[in-house]
């Protein structure tokens, strides 16, 4: 027959029969030739099989539960044989086995051999059951394995329910700023002066504040209104002192190259403008 499908089947049966040469395991007295149906995968995909298990305890637990055994009644000889068959198969297929799998094989073999030794009469059978530690570990692992399944079934954020959030751009927040006391400010000033005293090369130019304040005021006005006639920067109602302060402020700013004093024609009116546009000024940040 040239039917490729049949050929394929024969081929896979051929693989099977190699494995069938000896039973995979003896379970409760009867030979087991095949991988359990729900787990059977072609041998070249044994890697997947290996990944199915979370470690030797998981594999062992599977073997025990699969055959309907009880953990406390674990027939060590049978299970050991099955376990080792799996491990060897994977070894033959050059799959990288975690060391824990091999360690478990050793533990099982040891338990098996100890069970074969005659037990000293006076010792309690339970206390010296070589299987005890393994049973405890299997039971404990099984509990957490089940718990992992249960926690996965809990209603969970992101998967089952979703946290709600709405846009808050309409909410007006007022930023809360730290309070500052004038006393703190003056204490800072004192510190600066103390330091300045130690470093005489740092000099604070100490124009009277009123001149400084006027400089700021005039600059603001220039930015708001642009070029202004010289006379517009004076307010006669301030009296002589006020006029002098304004004049000094203009001179100082001219000296510092902050403003320009312009005269379009000889003996023409003086005009004052800031040396930068207000756009430039406000673009600082």
């Amino acid at each position, binding site marked *: 027959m040239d039917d490729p499908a049949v050929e394929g089947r024969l081929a896979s049966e051929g693989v099977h029969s190699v494995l069938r040469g000896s039973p995979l395991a003896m379970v409760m007295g009867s030979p087991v030739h095949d991988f359990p149906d729900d787990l059977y995968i072609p041998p070249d995909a044994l890697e997947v099989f290996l990944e199915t298990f979370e470690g030797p305890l998981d594999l062992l637990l599977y073997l025990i539960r699969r055959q309907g055994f009880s953990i406390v009644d674990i027939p060590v000889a049978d299970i050991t044989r099955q376990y080792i068959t799996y491990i060897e198969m994977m070894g033959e297929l050059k799959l990288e086995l975690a060391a*824990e799998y091999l360690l478990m094989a050793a533990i099982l073999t040891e338990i098996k051999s100890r069970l074969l030794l005659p037990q000293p009469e006076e010792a309690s059978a339970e206390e010296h059951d070589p299987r005890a530690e393994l049973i405890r570990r299997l039971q404990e*692992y099984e509990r957490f*394995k089940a718990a992992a399944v249960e*926690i996965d079934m809990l209603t*969970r954020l992101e998967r089952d329910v979703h946290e709600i959030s709405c846009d808050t751009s309409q*909410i007006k927040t007022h930023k809360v700023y730290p309070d500052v006391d004038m006393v703190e400010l003056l204490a800072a000033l004192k510190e600066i002066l103390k330091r300045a005293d130690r470093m005489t090369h740092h000099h604070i130019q100490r124009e009277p504040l009123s001149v400084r304040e006027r400089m700021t005021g005039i600059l603001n006005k220039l930015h708001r209104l642009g070029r202004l006639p010289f006379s517009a920067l004076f307010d006669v109602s301030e009296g002589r002192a006020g006029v002098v302060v304004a004049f000094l402020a203009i001179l100082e700013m001219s000296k510092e190259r902050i403003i320009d004093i312009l005269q379009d024609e000889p003996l023409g009116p003086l005009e004052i403008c800031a040396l930068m546009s207000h756009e430039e000024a406000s673009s600082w940040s």
Partner: protein
Amino acid sequence: MELKHILEAALMASGRPLTLDEFGRLFDEAERPNEAELLMALEHMAEEYQWRPMELKKVASGYRLQVREAYSPWISKLFEERPGRYSRAFLETLVIIAYRQPATRGEIEEIRGVAVSSSIIKTILEREWIEVIGHKEVPGRPALFGTTAHFLDYFGLTSLAELPPLKEFIDPLGGESAGVDALLTTMNQPQTAAMADSPHDLNNSHE
């Protein structure tokens, strides 16, 4: 402005659970509602939501608004990645920490029988589901992991006591289960004693 609407707006705006205390602090002291008033308003809110796609849920770090599970088929389409798929190794590590906390990595490995990959611990730490709550005073001073409020929030729980109880598997064939009990008690493992069937006592010790 109705109280329940203010609380609703706050939950919508915060996008995280809020405690009664936090609700209270939305108000100036003079107008601050008391706890009973807040609870009453929350109850009204929950009632109103009965016919809406959201629900009010109490979790570990407070009250939160969430889209009902029934809507997840549509909502999940909003998100590129399919979230919330975790490997068995991840989940087993997580539950061991949850039920056994504080637990070291060595203890987790002892139970699972295999090495715990660093990347799993790192992922759970990054998700802020667990945190290092101390170090065990043994050689190497391994980190002790415990779960966070965030973990409980994520799984919709208010406390560890709400975790499903750890199951005791009764072996049908083992007629000697009494023997096993005896076995377990003679093994004199402090951890076995600490591992009650329900995690209630864990909760106390962690909080």
